[in-house]
């Protein structure tokens, strides 16, 4: 072997070994030396290299690496989480941009540019974060499959649900997204619920909710959101009306009702000075509220509470009734 050939062989071996784990490097180097020497007894160096192929490919075979970050096993869950998180992010940014436009319409252009900017950055960040989390789980083999812990048996084949008993995935996801967005609003921007009025260049905002007591009210609110969230997840996983969904719906609505009563009737939910504060900066409104001598609308939120409560009761009854009806009529045991 000429010096030139020896040099080329060494280069080839180096190209392979630099790509394999340190602990194996020395031995693989010896192996390759042995192999190439043996091959050179019957072949020219060119033929040897042609046979061995790209050193990077060779090294990869030694590494037995996985060629993916997220395996098929995790892929479904990954895509599912990704979709929801992206929708929530985009939705949250969009709503906040719309609200900002309403409050401060003089800088709509700036807000739109800012929104586009935010959505790209936040989208990429969220995408990266979800991917990273799943890659980590993949590497650590964290099991996240909610549905299948037992080995599958034919007994698990449930009858195909009646068409009318199926719960649409889209509806569930829409509800989940709404719950998350609404919770975010309640956590980060409860002051946005209120009255707005333009005064010169400035927009004045009077909150409708009692922000002074918000630290008591918010947890109750969030708890009821959480209960609804669990309910939607149950619906999503089962995919059709069945006893579990019925039970969950009844509990969720009952808890929701109780919490609504607590929030609306027991806790100081409303900003009781709302009307007075609005009247302070809005003369038209003042005329309507204060007529002749006194406040015409006696605002302490009680009437509004009663109306909202009535709507909630109505909605709960309808939902429970529908669920029970559909479960009894079309649903299956589970």
């Amino acid at each position, binding site marked *: 072997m000429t010096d030139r050939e020896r040099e080329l062989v060494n280069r080839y071996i180096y190209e392979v070994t630099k790509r394999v784990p340190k602990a194996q490097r020395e031995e693989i180097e010896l192996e*390759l030396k*042995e192999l190439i020497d*043996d091959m050179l007894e019957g072949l020219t160096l060119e033929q040897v290299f042609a046979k061995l192929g790209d050193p990077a490919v060779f090294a990869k*075979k*030694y590494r*037995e690496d996985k060629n993916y970050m997220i395996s098929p096993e995790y892929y479904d869950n990954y895509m599912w989480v990704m979709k929801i998180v992206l929708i929530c992010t985009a939705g949250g940014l969009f709503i906040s941009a719309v609200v900002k436009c309403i409050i401060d319409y003089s800088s709509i252009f700036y807000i739109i540019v800012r929104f586009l900017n935010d959505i790209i950055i936040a989208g990429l960040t969220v995408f990266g974060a979800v991917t990273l989390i799943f890659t980590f789980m993949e590497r650590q083999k964290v099991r996240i499959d909610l549905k299948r812990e037992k080995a599958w048996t034919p007994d698990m084949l449930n009858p195909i649900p009646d068409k009318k008993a199926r719960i649409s995935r889209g509806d569930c996801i829409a509800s989940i997204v709404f719950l998350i967005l609404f919770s975010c609003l309640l956590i980060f921007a409860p002051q946005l619920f209120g009255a707005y009025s333009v005064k010169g260049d400035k927009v004045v905002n009077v909150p409708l909710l009692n922000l002074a007591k918000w630290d008591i009210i918010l947890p109750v609110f969030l708890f009821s959101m959480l209960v609804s969230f669990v309910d939607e997840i149950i619906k999503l996983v089962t995919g059709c009306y069945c006893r579990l969904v019925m039970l969950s719906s009844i509990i969720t609505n009952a808890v929701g009702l109780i919490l609504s009563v607590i929030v609306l009737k027991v806790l100081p939910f409303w900003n009781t000075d709302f009307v007075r504060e609005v009247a302070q900066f809005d003369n038209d409104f003042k005329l309507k509220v204060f007529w002749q001598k006194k406040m015409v609308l006696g605002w302490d939120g009680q009437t509004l509470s009663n109306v909202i409560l009535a709507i909630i009761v109505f909605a709960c009854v309808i939902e429970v009734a529908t669920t029970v009806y559909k479960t009894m009529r079309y649903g299956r045991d589970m």
Partner: protein
Amino acid sequence: MGEEKDLMGNLVSELRRGTLILSVLSQLGEAKYGYALVQSLELKGVEIDPNTLYPLLRRLEKQGLLSSQWDVGEAKPRKYYRRTLLGDDIFRELKEQWERLSDNMEQILREESI
């Protein structure tokens, strides 16, 4: 045409991949070094690229089917592989599986010959 060739190539190599471990195990009842194994398989019509074989040998060693030893007595050091006891057992079982498989395939293909 080129695509068809690619497809064929893929299918054939997929078919061969399954037989690789059995071929390698079959030859290592006595100790052999890597390239001697390539040549002895080649003589029997089984072609295997060194860049597939060498990593495979390491993997089988890690799984406990083969053991290796460096022989530094000769002019150049060589790494010899041979089957372990576990390797013997696995080889025997795989061989039985293969015989059954090949019987079945033969029958299937005879019935369906074009």
